[in-house]
């Protein structure tokens, strides 16, 4: 939480002095940075605390997946056809649906969330490992989008003129693409080309890289627009004039003077982009262009499970619930961060 901007200014470039007066408690005399104020507000927000805890938990699950799976005892890619008593886990007369368990899920003291139909893999282990694919792709894509969007937006807003016109048109074009369709069509093509032209094997690293790149590439334009607008207003402020009159070049002004003032905005948008990318990754995996088999992914689990929803509804429920919880937590946290940084726009 380092929000220490060189010049304290609220994210919308409004009136800093009023702001602080409004919110800072009167008895405190020493000035507080916007970061400290926002942090204080965030800490009081119960929704923020709960969603942040959930997110930390999910991140911990993703990071510690190998350890967790060691405890539960079944690796995510291992087929299991018999339990420790030698009973069949799958009913091979009925197409390989789990035998027994709650709602035909095969849940037992060994397989906590049951086993997958047909392949007999442990649902719990795949759920835990699925968090890795989701978070990795979503966070990676967000970083790409934020970096691209910030740099392009600042350059457009700072230089104005033909640079701005050109970059803004590029943003307009990107924003008018049917993004999901494009990603759907592009992902397999890029992966194929990487293999045939550059000899990069079409493995999971490549697939994830492509997903991250594609999501980021189609996601930066929206952010760039916002950054551009903010930059246009910040660059007219006195401290920028001061820096320039002291001989600061554009690089210094953009990255040392303007960028710190954009951080609150970026933070809000980043927390709101992450959940959309988690959903996008799941959607792409659902549609078969996501991570490769046998890597676990919530999207593909949902896709597989949709075949079996009648006989085994829980298999569909678990990845769906994980996806729902994760996305909701990120969205609520994003809202709270926005409220904390800019109380005027928030909930009362």
């Amino acid at each position, binding site marked *: 939480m380092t929000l220490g901007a060189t010049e304290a200014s609220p994210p919308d470039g409004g009136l800093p002095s009023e702001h602080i007066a409004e919110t800072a408690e009167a008895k405190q005399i020493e000035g507080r940075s916007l970061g400290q104020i926002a942090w204080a507000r965030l800490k009081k927000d119960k929704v923020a605390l709960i969603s942040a805890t959930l997110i930390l938990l999910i991140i911990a699950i993703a990071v510690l997946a190998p350890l967790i799976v060691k405890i539960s005892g079944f690796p995510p890619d291992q087929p299991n056809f018999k339990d420790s008593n030698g009973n069949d886990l799958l009913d091979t*007369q009925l197409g*390989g649906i789990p035998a027994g368990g709650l709602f035909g899920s095969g849940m037992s003291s060994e397989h906590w969330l049951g086993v997958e139909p047909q*392949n007999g893999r442990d649902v719990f282990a795949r759920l835990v490992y699925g968090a890795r694919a989701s978070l990795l792709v979503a966070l990676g894509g967000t970083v790409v989008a934020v970096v691209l969007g910030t740099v392009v937006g600042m350059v457009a807003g700072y230089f104005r003129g033909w640079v701005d016109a050109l970059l803004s048109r590029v943003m307009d074009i990107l924003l008018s693409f049917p993004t999901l369709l494009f990603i759907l069509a592009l992902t397999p093509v890029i992966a194929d080309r990487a293999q045939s032209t550059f000899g990069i094997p*079409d*493995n999971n690293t490549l697939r994830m890289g492509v997903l991250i790149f594609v999501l980021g590439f189609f996601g930066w334009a929206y952010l760039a627009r916002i950054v551009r607008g903010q930059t246009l207003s910040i660059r007219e402020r006195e401290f920028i004039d001061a820096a320039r009159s002291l001989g600061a070049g554009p690089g210094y002004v953009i990255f040392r003077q303007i960028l710190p003032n954009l951080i609150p905005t970026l933070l809000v948008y980043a927390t709101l982009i992450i959940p959309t990318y988690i959903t996008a990754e799941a959607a792409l995996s659902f549609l078969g262009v996501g991570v490769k*088999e046998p890597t676990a992914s919530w999207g593909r689990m949902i896709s597989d499970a*949709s*075949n079996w929803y009648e006989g085994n509804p829980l298999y569909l429920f678990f990845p769906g619930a994980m996806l729902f919880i994760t996305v909701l937590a990120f969205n609520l946290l994003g809202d709270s961060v926005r409220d904390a940084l800019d109380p005027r726009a928030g909930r009362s």
Partner: protein
Amino acid sequence: MTHAKRAGSVIATGLALTLTLAACGGGNNDDGAGGESSEQGAKGGIVTVYHASDFEHLDPARAFVTDTGMAGQLLYRTLTAFDWDAETKKVELVGDLADKWEKSADFKTWTFTLKDNLKYEDGSPITTKDIKYNVERSFSADLSEGAPYGKDYLDCKGYKGPYSPAGNNGGKGCTAIEVPDDKTIVFKLNQAVSEFDMTASMKIFAPTPQAKDTKTQYDNRVWSSGPYKVKSYTRNKTLVLERNTNWDQATDPLRTAMPDGFEFKFGDDEAIVDQRLIAGTGADANSLSFSPVQPQNLSKLTQANVKDRIIEGTDTCRRYIAFNQQKPLLKDQKLREALYYGFDKTAYLTARGGERLNKPVDSIVPESLEGYRKNPLEVPPTGDIEKAKAALAASSYKGEKLQLGASDATDISIKAAEAAQAAWKKIGVNVDIKKIPGDNYYSTQQNDASATDLVTAGWCPDWPSLSTIVPKVLGPDNTAPGKAAQNNYGRSTIGWDKMNEIPKIADQKEATNAWADVLDEAMAAYPLVPASADNSIYVIGGNLTNTSANSDIGGLPDLTKIALKKVG
């Protein structure tokens, strides 16, 4: 000259059939066949056929997969054909275009005579010249996907098909095919083939008039000699067939052609097709699917409105995974041995939907076929990890990724590939799954440049003889030195000399033994691992009658005698 035998169509497997195909030929398939109806049905109406992916090649010179084996029956006729009897579950070889045929004492010269009154869709007469032309087309490198028997058996060495640049041999074509008049055709073979009348049931022995030939585009509009003609064909969407009014029922012992037309719908999600067929309402009462019931729907087959609408059948096709020896890594026999012993048949079968839909097999030869031998390499159904690990340790494999090709047309083939991947991971072999579009699967695997390391494949004998299995799956393509036969996906080279000598053996029994010997010899070098045979179960529309799963053509629902119960 009518042998009651089971034969089979061809390749089967990846696609449409993909899921299906089934097991065992022979006598033990008397389960199945619930709900077959022998009502005559009414003339007229349209039958809708759902198919997970489009046909690779409808062109009779290129059609060599079970789905086109079935659809082709509606569009073109061959010299002979196997007539499927749903009651006895047997096929009988009958003359389709041919009225009668004779063979020479050495089985090397075969003369076929056509029936009278055979007409194309425009009313022009079908002549033997056009059959000769289509067989010649199958020699062309551009149309190489079809049955290889023309190239294999006909004595016109070096002939490269009727197109330029090779030209048509100065207008003479393949000199081993003689057409003394419009109704007679003589084939001169380079070896004794006692079953050449069965060979003549292959689609390459259908007529194609030279004037209608569009070479590689002929897939899109084949010229009809059968009871139906192409009304419209949108690749990957629909193929609509309408009645060919010039087809004469009196000349055709095989087809009843009761419906007015067929509509093939490609690419619908199988899960959705299953739902529709199980509901069976509205237009779906006249529908069926080339994809068998998905594993998740097996539990619904006992429902009251479904249980009488089920057809079920086995076939002589065998599924296997071939190890492509063109790839440097897989030249190492120890690695192939490790893959062979590490393969978990139980997991593979369970992923394919379990015991109800599959059975494990230990050979590419159906148990019912003369010459079948129990696999001398004893492997438990879940694989032999010890042996596999020992072989792997002795190999030069260092953890490289091997690509396993699987058709993406069906969920089940991807699931099966994942099962194989997990089993091989267990012994320390890393496998990546490469999904290949179903309407392009076999073409991709036949092309040396695009074939994967490990090839999911399946093979159905063309007629009941080891000569349609062993040299096709493990043998050479004799048109070029060192070239593997088109369906030899493992590019195995063992025993090729012997395979070229066996046709000279006149005694049937001796030849069968020789084939079995050479199969054992080739299999000892682990070119492939036999996996499963299918038991196909289909739910069909309630208004359809005379339906059955045709064991002769990959276990697919038979379309030659199907009819609507009520029209209107």
